[in-house]
């Protein structure tokens, strides 16, 4: 049986998410309070559209919310998204609920109230900017396998804490390895006793989101 996803509110976000979910084999139902938006969403292939307020139990019933695999609340109001998720979870036993959240201060509260995943744009953008700022001029990061694996290019300055050290002397997380060292026009496959020199560029392969802490450790920058 096909997995089912319920998208509550939202228009542009619902449109793009519906595309992605259909591609991944979901049967998608969208609930929208605006009639013109409903008409446009109904143009999409494979999307069932229900016109109404997705925070009302009878509208969710009509949208066949019973035991959906995924319910995503995308309205612009935090209160509506919380109530929609709680209804889906408690009354309709949705397997997984996701709520969009504007106010980052309420992130922990929403998790506490039983929302499985809280998507706070402010939080995500902040952490993206932090990552960008941190990496700017330090390293180039290439995500592989939907970000599960990262390959980073890390230049080593004279002042870096690992300059002059041998590879085996560097304490890296087990998920991180130095795959290659670029030195001038040479590329060196490192061994335990290879010494890191200033000006080297390390090619770092890391899994499990360990790249940031590893790069911090290697460059000494935070």
């Amino acid at each position: 049986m096909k997995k089912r996803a319920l998208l509550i509110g939202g228009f542009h976000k619902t449109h793009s998410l519906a595309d992605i979910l259909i591609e991944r084999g979901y049967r998608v139902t969208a609930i929208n309070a605006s009639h013109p938006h409903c008409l446009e969403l109904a143009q999409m292939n494979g999307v069932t559209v229900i016109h109404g307020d997705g925070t009302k139990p009878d509208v969710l019933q009509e949208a066949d919310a019973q035991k959906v695999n995924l319910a995503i609340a995308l309205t612009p109001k935090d209160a509506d998204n919380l109530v929609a998720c709680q209804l889906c979870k408690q009354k309709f036993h949705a397997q997984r609920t996701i709520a969009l959240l504007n106010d980052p201060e309420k992130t922990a509260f929403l998790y506490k109230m039983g929302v499985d995943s809280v998507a706070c744009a402010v939080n995500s953008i902040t952490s993206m900017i932090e990552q960008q700022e941190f990496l700017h001029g330090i390293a180039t990061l290439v995500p592989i396998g939907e970000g599960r694996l990262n390959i980073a290019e890390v230049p080593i300055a004279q002042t870096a804490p690992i300059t002059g050290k041998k590879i085996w002397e560097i304490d890296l997380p087990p998920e991180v390895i130095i795959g290659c060292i670029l030195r001038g026009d040479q590329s060196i496959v490192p061994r335990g006793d290879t010494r890191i020199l200033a000006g080297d560029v390390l090619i770092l392969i890391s899994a499990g989101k360990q790249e940031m802490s590893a790069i911090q450790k290697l460059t000494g920058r935070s």
Partner: protein
Amino acid sequence: MGKGAYQECQGVRTMKLFEAQKKNLPYTVIAGGAGFAAALAEILEAQGSDVLVIARSQEAFRAIASSCKGRILVGDCTDMDMLRAANLEKAAMVVAATDDDNVNLLVAQLIKEVFGVQHIVAIINEPERECVYRELSVTAVSPVLISAQAIAGRLLSVQKEDSL
């Protein structure tokens, strides 16, 4: 909201709260400034409660609750800073009484979970949402149901009188 007005408001509240505690008046916070909240504020005040109303607009609230002398905190009642300023831990009761059911549901749960207030009443305009509360010890009151029941009760007594 101007910071000056807010601080002034807080100052007034602290002073009044002291007074209230001296007279042993119960402190009640009402989130919302629409018609229902205004009526409730006036009744509670007449009963001798110390009332604080969190409303979006001071002018709008004063216009519908002209006899209410209570203090007003101007702002969004779902805002954490606003709730922190309301001294909720001192409140004997908090009433979530905006005209938006979902906002009332959010505020009631927020106040219970984050601020630890015990006695919370949420106004629910559409009683079908009550199931969200079932797991929580938040009391939901539906003015629609209560009015309907009152009218139905009146009808019964009118019929009885007529049949006598």
